[in-house]
């Protein structure tokens, strides 16, 4: 038996729904409805833990509201790893074990790797106990598939350029266009890229959250960028020119005579691209960091002294 089985956890569906093992089908239904109202993804937007909990509830309901599945779960549930031994014992005792239906090892499907709940909505425990087939179709109404969500991590510079990214969703590769100017934690919806719908209904949607990394040079506030620029004291006093970092490389800018430490200058349209507005940019705000010389030569000291006398 593959060792991976040791990592696959038994799921107590009764505990999931908060009911006792003697609960009637009506009790199961009531408990499911109550908890589903609390954890349904439509009522908990962008809440991953609620989505996970809802999947767990669905699975518990699927098993416990179906008499056949419930019987199988009750019979083998906690001891599902030993189904083979039970089967052997049953054969040796002339089929007297448990008094239920006959299960073969194949009923438990192939043992796959542990992944907990996947985007498909069923735990490995469920898949192994019931296999992929024979799921209850349940509602006869057609409803949209499940919505999926995921994160795409971008560097600061990547977020400043419209570019293509390939992402993998449930084993399927998707090529998406990331528009320049996305913000950190911004979410986009890709219609129809979620789980398949039931009875011909449309597929669910895929929600992607962009995580944009910070940059060591620039700070971003909306579409404006902030950068610090060192200015030597002579340029600050007399004025001059300075090379400033922008997203497109360095640009030359004029420094006014008498520039104060900490004062700011604005470079129009040199900031971050505006999301989905091609050709529009925020501003770049430059903060002057005036550098006072520390190791003056004798001559420089003398000149500063002379300047002092002119006050």
């Amino acid at each position, binding site marked *: 038996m593959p060792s991976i089985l040791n990592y696959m956890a038994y799921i107590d569906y009764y505990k999931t729904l908060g009911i006792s093992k003697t609960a009637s089908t009506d009790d199961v239904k009531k408990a499911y409805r109550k908890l589903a109202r609390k954890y349904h993804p439509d009522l908990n937007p962008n809440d991953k833990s609620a989505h996970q909990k809802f999947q767990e509830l669905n699975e518990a309901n699927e098993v416990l509201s179906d008499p056949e599945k419930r019987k199988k779960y009750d019979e083998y549930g906690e001891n599902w790893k030993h189904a083979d031994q039970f089967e052997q014992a049953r054969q040796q005792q002339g089929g007297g074990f448990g008094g239920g239906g006959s299960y073969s090892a194949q009923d438990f499907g192939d043992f796959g790797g542990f992944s907990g709940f996947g985007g498909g909505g069923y735990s490995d425990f469920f898949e192994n106990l019931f296999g992929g087939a024979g799921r209850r179709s349940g509602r006869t109404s057609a409803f949209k598939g499940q919505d999926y969500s995921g994160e795409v991590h971008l560097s600061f510079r990547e977020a400043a350029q419209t570019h293509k990214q390939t992402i993998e969703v449930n084993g399927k590769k998707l090529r998406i266009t990331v528009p320049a100017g996305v913000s950190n934690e911004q979410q986009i919806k890709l219609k129809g890229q979620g789980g398949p719908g039931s009875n011909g209904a449309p597929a669910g949607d895929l929600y992607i959250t962009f995580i944009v990394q*910070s940059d060591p040079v620039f700070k971003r*506030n909306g579409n404006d960028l902030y950068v610090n620029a060192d200015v030597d004291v002579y340029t600050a006093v007399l004025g001059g020119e300075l090379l400033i970092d922008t997203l497109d490389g360095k640009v030359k800018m004029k420094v006014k005579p008498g520039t104060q430490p900490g004062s700011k200058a604005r470079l129009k349209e040199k900031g971050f691209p505006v999301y989905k507005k091609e050709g529009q940019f925020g501003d770049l705000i430059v903060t002057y960091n005036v550098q006072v010389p520390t190791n003056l030569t004798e001559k420089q000291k003398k000149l500063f002294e002379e300047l002092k006398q002119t006050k």
Partner: protein
Amino acid sequence: MDTELIIIKEYIQQANIEPQFIALLEENGLIHIQEMDNERYLPADELTEVERYARLYYDLSINMEGIDAIHHLLDRIYALQDEMRTLRNQLRFLE
């Protein structure tokens, strides 16, 4: 800007939704049906909402008054999440 329109008669057949459900949504001001040449249409940009309302109504047995209240609360949640995102980014800027 032109909005794409969906023929309601065809949509409810495909989605297996009762006509009364659509009528209830309209009565409660949750959707804005358009009528042309005796044909009723649903604006395509309201389709996602209709699908959500259908899940709440059929899957969770929430009545129309409840759906209306949820609709308002969800709007507030989305606005708060947007505000939180903006504030988090501003905080990151100040760090």
